[in-house]
């Protein structure tokens, strides 16, 4: 059975259907409707559908490229405040004021006006004589933190998260050809794990990836790694050494994304199956009121070509039944401080720290084997790391001892 099915999938499907009805039966993408401003459909939650590349077009119409979104670093003169004569002339021209005024402006509006250079001005220390409410609250929070001990673990996780988020910031490619294009869009995607632990009821774990508008859907599909892609089928208790040869990703290449009424199927390999066909046929064979679904080739579409709602749950399905909810949370123009190396996208920026299943024996290492009907095990199923599994179940020559069934196990936390 489809044990990994996302629990809300029924609910979600009916949402999608309702949405399609609201669409007035019109074409799903590419037409003039895409040139709308993105606006809320449900306030604070998700937008109405729009064409991704239309957003880039609207922005570029409004901005002065070289000035607003060029990938060159900001002019050094403009950072120091008092610019040279050249800068003053530019200011005078832009504002329509005299050169004299421009010079004075650079002094009056200088950054030094925002800071006293006092003797003891340490950003680590909250000043004693402050009247800012924010600082009062922060002071109390920090004091409370110092008194409690739970900080360490949170701190480690946060450091990890911070490094993950910022590791590629400002990176430039070694080959200039790999430089991200000016005016390119960056999309932020949250891809949820299919696991349903009760502890994740409130907040489902997910990972966050950045993709470029010009990238193909298949590029995301290829870079996205899920534990089920690495699952290895089969019972290997007699031949444990032969176990990990083919991972599921090699064996089952079919996959699809679902966005706004269209299934984008990966059809690059002859062995790929149109996974969406069953769903489409099912929907069409009965009058289920889901409207008409369409099917397209994943490899033919870039993110720019998509017609999507921001904040709305869509779907990625692979391995036949491993379903991931996908939410596009943000789209913006690429910025000089972003990772500018094309080859590093899709870029993983956040990953939920999943609890790993530890070996039952050593309680230290992550499980790599799971056994059933195991005469040595106190529970069924039971999980073991590779070393403990072999030590317990085989003699020094590698002969199987006792009765048990053994399956290779890939822990979702392996990717932490």
């Amino acid at each position, binding site marked *: 059975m489809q044990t990994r099915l996302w629990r809300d999938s029924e609910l979600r499907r009916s949402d999608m259907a309702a949405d399609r009805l609201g669409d007035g039966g019109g074409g799903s993408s590419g037409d003039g409707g895409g040139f709308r401003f993105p606006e809320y459909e449900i306030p604070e939650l998700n937008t109405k559908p729009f064409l991704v590349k239309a957003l880039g077009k609207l922005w570029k119409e409004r*901005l002065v490229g070289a000035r607003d979104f060029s990938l060159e670093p900001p002019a050094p003169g403009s950072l120091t405040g008092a610019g040279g004569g050249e800068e003053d002339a530019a200011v005078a021209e832009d504002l329509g004021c005299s050169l004299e005024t421009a010079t004075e402006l650079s002094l009056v509006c200088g950054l030094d006006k925002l800071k006293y250079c006092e003797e003891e001005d340490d950003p680590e220390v909250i*000043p004693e004589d402050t009247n800012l409410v924010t600082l009062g609250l922060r002071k109390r929070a920090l004091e409370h933190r110092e008194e409690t001990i739970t900080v360490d673990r949170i701190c480690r996780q946060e450091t990890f998260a*911070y490094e993950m988020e910022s590791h590629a910031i400002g990176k430039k490619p070694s080959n200039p050809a790999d430089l991200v294009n000016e005016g390119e869009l960056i999309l932020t995607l949250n891809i949820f794990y299919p696991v349903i632990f009760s502890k994740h009821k409130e907040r489902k774990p997910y990972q966050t990836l950045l993709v470029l508008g010009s990238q193909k859907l298949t590029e995301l599909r290829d870079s996205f790694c899920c534990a089920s892609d690495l699952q290895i089928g089969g019972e290997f208790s007699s031949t444990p050494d032969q176990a990990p040869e083919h991972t599921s990703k090699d064996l089952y290449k079919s996959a699809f994304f679902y966005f706004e009424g269209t299934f984008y199927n990966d059809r690059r390999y002859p062995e790929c199956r149109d996974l969406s066909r069953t769903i489409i046929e099912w929907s069409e064979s009965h009058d289920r009121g889901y409207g008409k679904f369409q099917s397209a080739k994943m490899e033919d579409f870039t993110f720019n070509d998509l017609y999507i709602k921001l*904040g709305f749950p869509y779907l990625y399905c692979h391995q036949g039944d491993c379903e991931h909810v996908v939410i596009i949370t943000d789209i913006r123009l690429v910025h000089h401080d972003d990772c500018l190396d094309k080859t590093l996208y899709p870029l993983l920026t956040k990953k939920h720290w999943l609890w790993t299943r530890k070996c039952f024996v050593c309680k230290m290492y992550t499980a790599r084997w799971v056994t059933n009907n195991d005469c040595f095990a106190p529970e069924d199923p039971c999980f073991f790391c590779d070393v403990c599994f072999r030590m317990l179940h085989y003699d020094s020559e590698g002969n199987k001892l006792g009765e048990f069934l053994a399956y290779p196990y890939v822990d979702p936390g392996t990717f932490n």
Partner: protein
Amino acid sequence: MGTPGGLHSDFETLLTRFQETDSVRFEDFTALWRDMKFHTIFYGRTRHMEKNKFTKEALSLAWKYFLPPYTFQIRVGALYLMYGLYNTQLCQPKQKIRACLKDWDEVMKFQQDLTNAQHYDASYILRKLRLDKAFHFTAMPKPLSYRMKKNIPRTEVTEEFKEPNDRVMKLITADTLEEIMNIHEHYQEMKQIISADKSQPDKALSLIKDEFLVNIKNLVLEHKQWHEDKKKLFTKVKNEDDQKEKEGSSQELEGSERAGALAKIKSKAYSIVTQASKSRRHRQVKLEPLESELVKKLGKTPCSKRNKEKLESEEETSSQIKDFPAPKRKRRC
């Protein structure tokens, strides 16, 4: 995540104090900023993630005050606030200000207002933020992650900072108009009573124009009409926008039509802006069209002479500083 409680109140304290200065000068803003040591708002031994998050929230809260329905002065204050926060933040690289597509058109309108009113310091700072690449140009004001929140906090607008819908209509309502009418009637009656000829007031008592009341009434009605026309034009422009989306082909033509309409409003709105005294300029931006009408109307009646003279004398002062409206010296004169 909601905005940390303190930020809201600290921003409002700063902006309220700025409001009290009756100025839009950066110089006046920085005096308050320094007095409150506002750059220390980022201080304290916090972790990198916390710093990033706090800075993002501070910038996005400041952005809210930068947009309508806040008054022109508050919006200038918010611009300075963003400039201050952006430049004194401790994040490396700096956190950016999220500008979404829908809001950007407001920002451009605002930039035009600044230029037209020759608020060079504010123009300079907006220009500088753009040059420093302080913005992320986004689709929506914030990322949308479909979190099943039980209660989404409503964004409340601080009334004190808000642009009143219509100051004139607030001042002269139908009731006050009726009241004035009654008083006038009473006044005329009193004059008749004390006059020699009881059927008509003495000439010596004729201190105001008889049509004074009718003039006020007409002015108010005219203003109301203007206000409604403006609203209609606004919705018309919006509809044209929608049309444009649908058609797409005749975009340019309609675009220029729209530009023309906007230019008309603007030229009307700023017709005498440069004549206004600089210290009050920020207030007059919105009221100008009415006042220019007033001047025209009142110009016909003798009692308005003084008023006109006053305006002219102001014009004199402003012509003296016309060439140099830079904030520093401006405040001195």
